[in-house]
């Protein structure tokens, strides 16, 4: 696009398309004129014309261009759209209230799970054994290799770090207490819960979220089937089965990791290790860890499913929901763990 100023007349040449709007807006700021002459233009498009009209100058055009200009004028109503602007504190308040609402909605969801759960107890046929079994395979059984590896390494690392200090005191054998108590009480269940929060909660949220976007959940509802029966209860039950079993596995694997390191770096024999293990831990230590497992399982499954149902009907929202679901379930698990610690202390376990 080229231009020329002739008195109070701006004459435009060449291609007047959306590409030249930026240039024209600079010219408008720089030059003074009352008329815009577009008769010399080679081509002109409607996008450019909209911009010309917003300038509110008189437009000189030939008959062909005039026709196009009339169409644009007819369809372009002017005025501005309402645009809400909010202050900083307003936004903070809004976010806070949204958080509170989110918590409220989650409590409502848990309530719904309980009430519908009572219905299932009276009508056990509503439980879908097949999908429970499938979910246990996917979320529990398939997690065994990674879980065994992680907890083995954690047990080994704790024993290794402990062994350096304990050697100085000549208290080598207490490495058994260190590993067994920390793994059985805290680390075993926590590793399982965090791993499954990443593995299962994200998968539940994605599955339910996409079903929500593609209106599959509505299809289930119109078929007269309770969506919770298909999507929530199988997941909760599969988690309730998987998490305790995986916790036991994590316990064994973690202590085994400690055993290997004790043998290699402190020279404690297998016999000594097991004898000491009997004195170090009681059944209560094991139960204190295992009792947390069902609570963690319930949190992971419900948060995963809940975030899925809360997904809005757009693609971006699925990504967001999955992130929040993983973060929230890990957070919830750790909070629950802290509460359990206080409770067990109080109860003297």
């Amino acid at each position, binding site marked *: 696009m080229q231009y020329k100023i002739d008195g109070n007349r701006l004459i435009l040449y060449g291609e007047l398309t959306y*590409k030249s709007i930026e240039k024209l807006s600079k010219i408008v700021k720089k030059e003074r004129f009352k008329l815009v002459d577009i008769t010399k233009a080679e081509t002109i498009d409607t996008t450019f014309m909209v911009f010309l009209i917003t300038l509110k100058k008189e437009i000189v055009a030939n008959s062909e261009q005039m026709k*196009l200009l009339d*169409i644009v004028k007819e*369809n372009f109503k002017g005025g*501005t*759209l309402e645009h809400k602007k909010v202050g900083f504190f307003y936004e903070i308040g809004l976010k806070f209230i949204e958080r509170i609402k989110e918590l409220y909605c989650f409590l409502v969801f848990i309530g719904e799970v309980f009430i519908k759960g009572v219905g299932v107890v009276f009508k056990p046929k509503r439980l879908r054994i097949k999908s429970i079994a499938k979910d246990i395979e996917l979320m529990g059984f398939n997690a065994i290799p990674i879980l065994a590896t992680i907890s083995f390494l954690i047990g080994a690392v704790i024993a290794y770090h402990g062994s350096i200090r304990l050697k100085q005191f000549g208290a080598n054998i207490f490495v058994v207490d260190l590993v067994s108590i920390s793994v059985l009480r805290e680390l075993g269940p926590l590793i399982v819960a965090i791993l499954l929060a990443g593995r299962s909660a994200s998968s539940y949220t994605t599955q339910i979220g996409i079903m929500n976007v593609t209106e599959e959940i509505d299809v289930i509802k119109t078929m007269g089937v309770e969506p919770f029966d298909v999507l929530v209860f199988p997941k909760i039950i599969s988690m309730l089965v998987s998490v305790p079993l995986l916790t036991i596995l994590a316990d064994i694997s973690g202590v085994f990791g400690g055993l290997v390191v004790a043998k290699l770096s402190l020279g404690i024999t297998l016999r000594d290790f097991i004898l000491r293990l009997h004195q170090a831990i009681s059944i209560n230590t094991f139960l204190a860890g295992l009792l947390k497992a069902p609570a963690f399982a319930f949190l992971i499954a419900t948060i995963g499913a809940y975030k899925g149902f809360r997904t809005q*009907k757009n693609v971006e929202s699925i990504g967001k929901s999955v992130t929040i679901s993983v973060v929230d379930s890990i957070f919830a698990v750790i909070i629950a763990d802290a509460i359990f610690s206080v409770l067990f202390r109080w109860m003297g376990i």
Partner: protein
Amino acid sequence: MDGDIIVVRDLKVSYGKRVVLDGVSITVKKGDIYTILGRSGSGKTTLMRAILMLEKSLGKIEVLGVDLNSARESEKEKIKKSYGVMFQAASLFTSLTVGENVAVPLKESAKLDWETTVDIVRFKLSLVGLEQDVFNLYPYELSGGMRKKAALARALVLDPKIIFLDEPTSGLDPVSADDFDRTIAELNRLLGITVVMITHDLDSFFGISKRACILRDKKVLAEGKPYDIMKQDDEWLKKLFFGERGSKFTRWNHG
């Protein structure tokens, strides 16, 4: 030839060993409303995707005088800017509002301030017959017909020379479909945009298209004006035009 905006000669497209189009030749003239007709699976969409450079093909596809299969990337980019495309499922970006959706091509190819962009977007929305208040709505809040119109507005935003429409009226009620056809015909008449569309809709076929081609068995069975095509001697065409659904047109046209 001058006035030919798309020239396709001996086009061959295959997915692996399966040949979808074999020796297809069509010519679209400037200012045409060109319809591609054919039964499901006859390769209509593939033909369109080949012209849109989404599908690899053998043969000659010449758009605005540039042969796409031998052109440089920069030339192809230029051609792409002169295209407006509306896919069958409307395919609006679900995480953007309707207004932002329509503004995407503008933002990508021109540096404009937001106010100007909004003005242009609102004009385009009004041009396809949408109310101003859809600007801030999300695609899932719209009906199917409105979504299609929003997609059309997005296809039109850069004043393309050619717009491609994949089954624009499928899934619309007859009134909305008529309305949509009228919009397309208006745009063609007023702005001189060349329209290439795939359709099953005989109303669109007889109502607005100026020229058409029929795809059958990987080849072009016939090309020309809609009423000339109707006279072709082919079993499927006869079923199409004189069967239950098509016969009303013959009744209207012959008495």
